[in-house]
């Protein structure tokens, strides 16, 4: 791409405040948090304990996932109820790499096979595990596999003009089928337990707080990067076509654009972002298993976006943080009641803030203007 156009476009992008805000967040996440974590003495009130860092790292991955979701749902108008699948696939790719790098340190001390295979009497590594000894390959797969699946699935679906809820439901069928498939121990992905017992990644022991901090900062960078990419796409002419497709698909056809390819681009890109998020997520939570494919998870992703405000990118990130933050807090603070509160939140948002939390922010700003 021609650099001037890129920078020009990004800066030209409607309001500066957004970019300043990003800078603020970047500083907050990449400078302030590490400082609070490392520099502050553990007993000080300002100290950011390690578990908070891992927690934030997890949220950042969710935020990236939400961003990916917003790209297809908020801009292409494709409500995918199967995005958890892409996330999980990316996670599995990274998990397989870390599985391989365990080597002979597994409980059965078998250098050639992961424990669960030893345990199921597998004699040799199945072909689809080949290559996952190399990080670059795993990283590539974390993008390529979700991308490819999205491309094929999307091509089939969009080409035959499956839209709206029909599309949502078959994406749900996709992730559901994948979940059942990965549950099967014969698949060679560890069945219900999935992949776990990871020791280290690229030689950095996962147990080390420093590794966790590193992963956290990486997640922050990736989120920022993903945001720039998404931003670049939606501010491009393609982005405007996406919105056009979202609002009046048939009309776009008469302008000579093919919605199939527009949506396919968005869907595939989004799937790859989701895969990336998954790949970063797994080393931080230390396990990946089929439950990540469960339809409920995918629905939740849509909910983060809706809560934050769809079609805004920022809203998606906001929503992911808000909902997951609430979940973390409530499951600890009100273990018996948190489902009531979370459920109420969803209802309140849909009834009160059709534009999500970001919409609320917008309303307040407008009020301020009115008073001023």
């Amino acid at each position, binding site marked *: 791409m021609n650099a001037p156009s890129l920078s020009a476009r990004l800066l030209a992008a409607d309001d500066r405040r957004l970019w300043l805000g990003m800078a603020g967040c970047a500083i907050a996440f990449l400078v302030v948090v590490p400082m609070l974590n490392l520099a502050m003495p553990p007993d000080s009130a300002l100290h950011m304990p390690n578990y908070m860092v891992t927690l934030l790292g997890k949220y950042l991955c969710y935020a990236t996932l939400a961003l990916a979701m917003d790209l297809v749902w908020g801009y292409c108008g494709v409500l995918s109820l199967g995005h958890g699948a892409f996330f999980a696939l990316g996670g599995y790719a990274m998990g397989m790499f870390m599985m391989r790098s365990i080597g002979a340190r597994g409980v059965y001390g078998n250098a050639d096979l992961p424990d669960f295979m030893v345990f199921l009497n597998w004699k040799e590594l199945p072909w689809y595990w080949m290559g996952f000894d190399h990080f670059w390959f795993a990283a590539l797969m974390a993008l390529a596999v979700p991308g490819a699946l999205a491309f094929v699935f999307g091509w089939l679906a969009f080409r035959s003009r499956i839209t709206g*809820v*029909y599309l949502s439901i078959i994406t749900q069928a996709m992730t*559901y089928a994948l979940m059942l*498939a990965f549950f099967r121990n014969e698949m060679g992905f560890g069945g219900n337990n999935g992949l776990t017992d990871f020791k280290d990644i690229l030689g950095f022991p996962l147990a080390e707080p420093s590794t966790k901090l590193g992963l956290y900062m990486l997640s922050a960078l990736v989120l920022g990067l993903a945001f720039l990419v998404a931003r670049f796409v939606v501010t491009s002419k393609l982005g405007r076509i996406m919105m056009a497709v979202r609002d009046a698909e048939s009309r776009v056809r008469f302008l000579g654009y093919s919605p199939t390819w527009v949506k396919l681009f968005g869907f595939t890109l989004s799937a790859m972002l989701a895969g990336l998020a998954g790949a970063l997520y797994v080393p931080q939570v230390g396990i990946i298993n089929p439950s990540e494919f469960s339809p*409920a998870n995918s*629905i939740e992703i849509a909910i983060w976006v809706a809560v934050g405000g769809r079609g805004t990118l920022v809203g998606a990130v906001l929503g992911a943080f808000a909902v997951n933050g609430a979940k973390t807090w409530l499951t600890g603070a009100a273990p018996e009641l948190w489902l009531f509160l*979370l459920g109420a939140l969803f*209802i309140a948002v*849909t009834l009160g803030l059709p534009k999500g939390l970001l919409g609320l922010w917008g309303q307040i700003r407008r009020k301020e203007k009115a008073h001023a």
Partner: protein
Amino acid sequence: MKAFRLLLVLLALLAWAPAHADEFSDAVRALNADNFADKIAAAEALSALGDGRAAVILEALADGRLHAAGDGTIVMEQGGAYRDAITQAAASSADASPITVNNRLRGVLRGAVGRLGLFSPDPELRKRAAESVIASPTPESAAMVRRALETETLPEVKRMLSLALANLDLADADPERRKAAIQALRDSSDPMVRGQLQHMLETESDPEVKAAADKAVGAINSRLVWVSVGANIFQGLSLGSVLLLAAIGLAVTFGVMGVINMAHGEMIMLGAYTAFVVQEVFRATLPPEYVGLYLPVAVPVAFVVTFVIGVGLERTVIRFLYGRPLETMLATWGISLMLQQLVRSIFGASNREVANPAWMTGGIDLIGGFTLTYNRVIIIGFCLAVLLALAALLRWSSFGLHMRAVTQNRPMAAAMGIPTGRIDAATFGLGSGIAGMAGVALSQIGNVSPNLGQGYIVDSFMVVVFGGVGSLWGTLLGALSLGLVNKVLEPYAGAMLGKILVLVVIILFIQKRPRGLFALKGRSVES
């Protein structure tokens, strides 16, 4: 011949003579031993007396209906009433505790009952006796069955006895008898028999007999193939009917109203819990024999309960979201979370027991060991009834007319003075109510827990979409075909792979028909 029967009668009379009385009652009391070995000995001793009354007692013991009172008297429970096992005099069950049995003792008892019952004056008992002889054959029973056959008059019992005899004769020393037995058994379709014949193939020495057995096995096998096909179809229909039940309500709230109703599953769950509550009320207030009636009562109650809840939801939440289907998904998801937690905090997280009423338990044993279970047959019938009722309501009632009007052209309907708001509420309530009734039915085959709904929600959406949103018949066809496909695949692919394949089928099918099985055509749909 006649003389022999006379003899039997005499025997029966003698059995009542006091001389035997204490011997008999001692044997009966001995049943209340403290370890199973002694109980088994006692049971064998009792049956050895050849006393007609023993059969009833042993049977009661096998069913755990035989109690021992504190003072050592043995009491027998029959349909809620307690009688002294020996004197047959009415007795109280005050301090009586049931005499425990284990599987081995049950086996012994069954055999004993069989041998004794063969000569009981009560034909019903004779029939059951014949069955139990087949179920648990013992070397000595062959001779007795032969004796019984000579005296037996009822053709039905005769048939069963000769079958039983043939079963036993397979193990007979005389090859001729074995061959005769095989001939007698070759027309049966009982896998049990096939099992024994196959077992024979391994052990049999006489080549002739072996050949005969081989032919018989072949004949039975070819019959069993058809049985399994039939069984497969029934299972498919049954699964289909379950899917259909789960989906009908959604076909209304989602199919007709366009609400992506994630709380649908919870409506089913609430229905199931209503069934539980009704059952508990019945248990608390009515004598046991009437408790079974809770089910027919629970159905309308569940409908009303979930209908009201549905209307409530529609008025407070859903109605603000028309035209924003995706938002309805979000809100109803929240609702479903809350409902689950609500039920959890009221009824507790663990499963609740909803029993099959007696008239819904068990099934008819068709040929080839294939059982047509009552609860599934009834559920198939029930779900078709619900579907037809709904179809009729939409088709002919003025409510149905208004409903279609509102869903097709809201402003026009409003302009014509149709109370759209009330119609919406009623429609959503209807969908929820149907889900509630489905919950009552599903409580009969599955578990009743706060997660009940989650198990059905995905499948329900699959069915509705596969069938074609907004088309009842599509839903019907979708559910049944999915059920059948699933069950046809299961034996080959296994339960898990079968389900996966079904999902793939759905995905590919939607490629061909983007609007499901029963798509609405025409320009109106396009934009």
